[in-house]
């Protein structure tokens, strides 16, 4: 699905991403962990061609994402509020995203219905613009907009950070189902080691822009990671 070839990015001489090679196969559920400044978000932005790489390339389905726009059709991502059009109501935003992917209103409604418990009554028909929602609810809108797109590749940056515990559990369940039933390739980052070892089958540990460890998840992975992050 995704191949990173010798990709590098530096800001003012400080290296943020520096990855010699990495391959993510179709249908994988991969977690990205690392302290702040490890380069997780920048790596995600590189995948979406939102940041220009200093060297190397990102191949999505074998095609370089820079200078090509085909990946947009099968990639859904939510990194931060910069993806939300905050002066729309959630409904307007969902239908807008749906339209961009040629999904009918009925299609969108169906997806939204399946998200009813996840929304917990705080998103739809609330008479609020997205900008008036709490940060956690904004995140839910972002995640939902990704699901509306029916993607083959889903990228979420720290999706658990702003959610309440129940929503975190529901999200874990949803992501697992999407991955197992629809074979969607999923990439998420998180600081929550429990969650990430719980759902991911493979974990990439990043430090100063490099992937310093590429672990298949086993019973020992959590302890291993906890040892790494111990101060």
């Amino acid at each position, binding site marked *: 699905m995704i191949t990173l070839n010798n990709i590098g990015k530096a800001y003012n001489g400080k290296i943020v991403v520096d990855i010699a090679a990495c391959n993510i196969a179709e249908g994988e559920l991969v977690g990205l962990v690392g302290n702040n400044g490890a380069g997780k978000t920048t790596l995600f932005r590189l995948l979406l061609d939102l940041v220009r790489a200093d060297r190397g390339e990102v191949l999505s389905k074998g095609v370089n994402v820079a200078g090509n726009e085909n990946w947009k059709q099968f990639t859904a991502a939510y990194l931060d509020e910069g*993806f939300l059009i905050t*002066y729309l109501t959630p409904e307007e935003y969902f*239908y807008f995203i749906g339209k961009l992917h040629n999904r009918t209103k009925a299609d969108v409604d169906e997806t939204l219905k399946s998200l009813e418990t996840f929304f917990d009554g705080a998103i739809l028909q609330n008479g609020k613009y997205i900008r008036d929602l709490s940060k956690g609810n904004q995140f839910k809108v972002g995640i939902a907009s990704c699901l509306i797109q029916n993607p083959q590749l889903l990228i979420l940056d720290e999706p658990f950070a702003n959610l309440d515990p129940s929503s975190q559990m529901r999200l874990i369940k949803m992501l697992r189902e999407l991955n197992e039933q629809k074979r969607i390739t999923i990439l998420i980052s998180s600081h929550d080691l429990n969650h990430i070892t719980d759902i991911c089958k493979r974990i990439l540990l990043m430090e100063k822009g490099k992937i310093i460890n590429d672990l298949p998840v086993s019973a020992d992975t959590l302890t291993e990671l906890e040892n790494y992050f111990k101060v």
Partner: protein
Amino acid sequence: MQIFMAFIIVYLLATAIVLGFSVSTIINKAFPNQDPEKVFCGFILYYFLFDMLFRFLWQELPTLSIQPYLAQNIQRKQLTRFLNIRSLFTFLNLLPILLFIPFAVSSIFQTDGSAAAIAFIICIISLTCFNHFTILFIKRKTIINGWWLVAFFVTIALCMAGDYFNVFSVSAISSTVFLHILKTPLLCIIPIALAFFSVVNNTRFLKQNLYLEELSSASAKKESANYTWLNRFGIYGELIGLDLKLILRNKRPRSAALMSVALLFYGFLFYKPETIEQGQYGVLLLGATFVTGIFIITYGQFLFAWHGNFFDGLMAGNFTLQQYIKSRFLLFAGVGTITFMLVSFYGFMSWKILIIQLAAYLYNTGFNTVLSIYFATRSYKGLDLSKSASFNYQGTGAAQWIYGLVFMLFGAIVYLPFALLFNAWAGVIAIGLFGLVNILLQDWWVQILANQLMQRKHKILEGFREK
């Protein structure tokens, strides 16, 4: 850009001083049989009337993101005082002083004595002060309620119209008032009172509204809107719908749009009966380009920046950059066409204006759109829509005029060779045809501009993220 502005300002100030000292000689020459003092006094209120208009467009509101200070140990009184005093440092306040005081010194002092001269100077300073704070107040009001903008322009327009159609004479009123003051210097208390009132009023308003940011956000229930008539344009319609909602639901773009509407009346400044009779088509064309292109100028100068808050999402969204660029063209074309239809009422003044506006409309839709989008791919500064506009009036200052000037300059390059070689109508036709050709070439432009955006989109994104 800043250097350019500084040059203009220094030039204006120098002219003002020279003018101020030579005004009595000029008046003597122009109106040989009249008392220069009377003529000059007749001119003062005119000046302050236009000053109001200019201030409205040029004077920037003093901005201060008030929130961090509210929690600190600073009294609200001090905050408002700081805002008021800082706002005073603008060249618009220097101008009347440089223009009128030399006259007071050189002329009034000699004929009416020192008391009259001092009273005169006090009057000028008070009126400047009055204009200054009244405009600050009105500008702040317009941000909260767009009708203030309309009311302001209507009032100014009524004053001018009343004078124009001889209902009353601004100059007669002005000379009566000021000659009285020169006779009885104590009367200068009245302008002082006016100035004082405007300061107090403005301060009171500021104090009351220091909490404004919190007050405005929570309120009515927000409804979803669906512009079905846009559906037939597919993805372009969706993107244009975003802009319409952007304008309707955010204060800053809304005031920009309202400003465009108000500026439609600028036609009256350009299309004067004398100008039409004398066949000064260059001036008419300039006016027509401005009036028909006003939306491109006001909205277009922040074309991508309006989307700054969600540009990441847009650039990762499922549409091509070509489609994005094309949607900009269509937005301009749509609004431009509506503007064109609205301003055809100027056609009542002369059929010539209709034709000139048609040419200008084609030129704007064909070519100014290209310029606007090109500039957008080169501006890396985002706007924060979520910031309330109440202490923020960026976007309606001098920069807009510079931007407009560049547009006009390109027009002149097309117009002048034909106008000078053949005649003015040839120039007008050249402008229209030039626009038309560019409209036909639009898909080619879309391709070029999309490439430009592709090249610089990372830089734009980076700039927009910083804010």
